[in-house]
């Protein structure tokens, strides 16, 4: 049931003469504090609204404030800490949060717009449409800036893959992402898929879009120039997704499946037309500002655009094309129907705008105009149904800002008690190796990514050979973009501060191994309930770690989003998901000759492990799935060492000294070696350096390490370079034959490991 429909006072029963209503917002509909609470507002927030308006708000106005001041739109519980992240850099063309997405100068008079966003709660309820509309929303953020999307990435987290519920969710999500992205015509070039019981009820679906625009042809989300017309373009407005913004900020309970109107249906075909028409419209030079309608629909776009320009708007809601008859003002204002945008154009430019949208069979209707009084006035015919100051609705304006309390989580004590001595040595390393390669978090995700078009737009340079990051060429230049999404949330759980740093460092390591230079990040911060002090502790400390690493790698934060309330109901207990600050990183490869892939290239090439090696064992897939230990400290990590190691690897690549590079991450050195081997079918023969415990050496996940292969003739120069940059390295052995041989023990044929690796996940999901 939709509580809002029953609460609404139908305007047709109104006894107030129209002439009166024209001049004054009807006060008789004031629903009061109780309704405000039901809409998710606090008592203090209701009071604040009354102070702003100088009177009590009517239901429509209350709905407007409730969505605009929800966590989803206002970032009220996170903005203080978001502002502490490094947000400046010489390449940044806009500051974080200033526009729909980050904008980075990539040279050649081009800029790259990119952003990651969550669609967790909608996907948990209706995985197919939830994921699809998540993809659609993030692409709109990119092309409303004038940029053409050229690549998509995603980061997905599911619960236990043995559960029927998880299988259903992953099938729906993957199909949703695939169908939307494939049809829209943007390649899905990279992503990550993790499984952990903490996501059983609350999956995470984070989608990222990357676009390219000429530096001087970008469009801002602004509404300058009183008198300029305001247009709505794209799909008709329906009752779908009403109060989605509030919904996204509310706890997810078992009854959520009944919240029907919160589901939105995506139409990638419509979005493709919208993309082409928008870019054509921008080229006319008549567009002043453009914004996507995502959360909170018309409300959010009109208020943010006006607030940005210090203007206001008059909007006639009855002019908005609707899908259903008799939609109420608040329904029109808050609808989250997909594939719609708000455009402010130069007065006099209406004709050329309409012509373009007509060519693409899209609706384009003037619904209002820009005003100078800073107020948003929404009309239904002659009747003024809501009147609010734009500035008071938005982040950085009147939206509330809170600093929440935090407290060190109790479970961290268990982690502090961990002693490596309880880790017994495994009996059979060969059997362990086979188990590791088949773990859901390690095994190939081919079942997932084969359903995504990776190659449309003919820019993807990593569709035949794999690299640690996806590489997409920028046509017309010598450059390529290197793109990755990363976060090992288990590390963040066991140590929010270090885990936050690792998320950034690992992303940078992937960019480095691909041959690129890390440039900037976008982040998607998925956490539990911010009112839970332990969750807020994770949030504050993870952000601190991220900030430090971003500072070190000179990769400022360009934007992103925060998703709180990710939690599951287990009995009468609420368990937050692991803190998951997903990092989407942009790197640049100035010379395409530097592109480096993970596969071994030549028989007899030497295999080097570059980076700090030790006997430390922290949280890793091996501890978790072999020993059943979850409460262990984060893997060994040193930001300075990591930074030096990455610089050294980049130099090796740029000097053409190494043939392959692959970072050591989940599953440790063994899995990295195996992945380099499986990508080439060449085998390897290595010896574990004497001072190390074999299981730890092979499977622990200490950070800051890369497996490289190089031609024997490059050995001396490689060693010299690494020594001069004070980076540790080990010559482990060489690329040989078609088997894996470690300490003279035959682990098996690479092709056998390949079949295990390729089929493990699909066997689980299809059965």
């Amino acid at each position: 049931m939709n509580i809002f429909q029953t609460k609404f006072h139908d305007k047709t029963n109104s006894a107030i003469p129209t002439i009166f209503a024209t001049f004054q917002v009807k006060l008789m509909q004031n629903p009061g504090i109780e309704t405000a609470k039901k809409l998710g507002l606090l008592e203090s927030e209701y009071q604040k609204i009354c102070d702003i308006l100088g009177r009590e708000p009517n239901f429509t106005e209350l709905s407007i404030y409730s969505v605009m001041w929800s966590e989803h739109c206002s970032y009220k519980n996170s903005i203080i800490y978001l502002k502490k992240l490094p947000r400046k850099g010489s390449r940044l063309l806009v500051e974080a949060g200033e526009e729909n997405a980050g904008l980075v100068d990539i040279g050649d008079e081009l800029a790259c717009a990119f952003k990651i966003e969550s669609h967790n709660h909608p996907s948990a309820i209706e995985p197919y449409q939830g994921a699809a509309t998540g993809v659609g929303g993030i692409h709109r953020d990119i092309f409303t800036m004038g940029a053409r999307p050229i690549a998509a990435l995603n980061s997905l987290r599911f619960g236990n893959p043995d559960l029927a519920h998880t299988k259903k969710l992953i099938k729906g999500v993957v199909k949703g992402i695939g169908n939307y992205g494939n049809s829209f015509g943007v390649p899905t070039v990279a992503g990550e898929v993790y499984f952990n019981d903490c996501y059983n009820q609350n999956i995470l679906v984070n989608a990222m879009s990357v676009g390219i625009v000429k530096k001087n042809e970008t469009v801002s989300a602004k509404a300058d120039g009183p008198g300029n017309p305001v247009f709505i373009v794209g799909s008709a407005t329906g009752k779908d997704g009403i109060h989605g913004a509030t919904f996204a900020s509310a706890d997810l309970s078992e009854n959520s499946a009944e919240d029907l109107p919160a589901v939105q249906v995506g139409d990638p075909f419509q979005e493709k037309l919208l993309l082409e028409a928008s870019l054509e419209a921008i080229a006319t030079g008549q567009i002043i500002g453009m914004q996507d309608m995502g959360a909170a629909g018309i409300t959010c776009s009109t208020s943010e655009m006006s607030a940005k320009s210090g203007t206001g708007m008059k909007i006639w809601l009855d002019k908005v094309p609707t899908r259903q008859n008799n939609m109420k003002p608040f329904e029109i204002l808050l609808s989250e129907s997909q594939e719609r945008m708000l455009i402010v154009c130069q007065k006099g430019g209406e004709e050329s705008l309409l012509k373009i949208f007509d060519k693409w069979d899209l609706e384009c209707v003037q619904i209002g105009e820009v005003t100078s009084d800073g107020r948003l006035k929404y009309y239904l015919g002659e009747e003024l149904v809501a009147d609010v100051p734009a500035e008071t609705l938005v982040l950085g304006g009147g939206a509330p800002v809170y600093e929440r309390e935090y407290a060190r989580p109790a479970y961290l004590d268990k982690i502090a008690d961990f002693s490596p001595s309880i880790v017994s040595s495994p009996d059979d390393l060969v059997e362990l190796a086979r188990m590791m390669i088949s773990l859901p978090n390690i095994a190939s995700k081919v079942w997932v990514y084969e359903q995504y078009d990776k190659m449309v737009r003919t820019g993807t340079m990593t569709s035949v050979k794999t690299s640690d990051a996806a590489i997409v060429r920028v046509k017309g230049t010598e450059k390529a973009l290197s793109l990755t999404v990363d976060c090992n949330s288990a590390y963040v759980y066991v140590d929010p501060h270090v885990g936050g740093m690792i998320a950034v460092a690992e992303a940078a390591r992937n960019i480095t191994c691909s041959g690129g230079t890390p440039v900037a990040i976008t982040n998607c911060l998925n956490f539990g309930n911010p009112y839970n002090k332990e969750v807020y502790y994770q949030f504050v400390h993870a952000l601190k770690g991220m900030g430090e690493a971003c500072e070190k790698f000179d990769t400022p934060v360009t934007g992103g989003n925060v998703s709180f309330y990710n939690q599951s109901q287990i009995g009468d207990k609420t368990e937050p998901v692991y803190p998951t600050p997903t990092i989407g990183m942009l790197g640049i490869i100035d010379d395409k000759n530097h592109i480096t892939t993970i596969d071994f290239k030549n028989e007899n090439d030497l295999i080097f492990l570059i980076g700090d090696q030790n006997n430390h064992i922290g949280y890793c897939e091996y501890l978790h799935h072999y020993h059943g230990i979850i409460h262990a400290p984060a893997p060994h990590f040193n930001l300075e060492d990591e930074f030096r190691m990455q610089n050294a690897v980049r130099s090796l690549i740029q000097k053409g000294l190494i043939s392959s590079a692959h970072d050591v991450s989940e599953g440790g050195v063994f899995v990295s070696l195996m992945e380099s081997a499986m990508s080439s079918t060449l085998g390897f023969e290595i010896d574990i350096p004497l001072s190390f415990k074999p299981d730890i050496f092979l499977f622990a996940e200490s950070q800051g390490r890369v497996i490289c292969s190089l031609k024997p003739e490059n050995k001396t120069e490689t060693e010299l370079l690494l020594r001069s940059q004070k980076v540790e390295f080990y010559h482990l052995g060489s690329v040989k034959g078609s088997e894996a041989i470690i300490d003279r023990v035959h682990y098996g044929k690479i092709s056998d490991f390949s079949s295990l690796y390729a089929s493990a996940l699909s066997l689980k999901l299809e059965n």
Partner: protein
Amino acid sequence: MPTYLAKINIMPHKELLDPQGKTVAKNMGNLHIEGVQDVRIGKHIEMNIQAEDMNVAESIVDQSCKKLLANLITETFSFTVEQV
């Protein structure tokens, strides 16, 4: 046990957008077919069921729809059952 034939219609929820139906409706004009206003596209499913009686057969169809055939979040279903 008697055999029943169930004819099931699954339709997109009436409150939700049906992109497929909308696109088809919009392009009927290209075929010079005029007057088509609204198109909604769903699925028709037929199943043969063995059951003790009509009530049991209907409950089997109802369960099949709820559990598998329809996605109740985005779709609605209706059906008829007849003995064959």
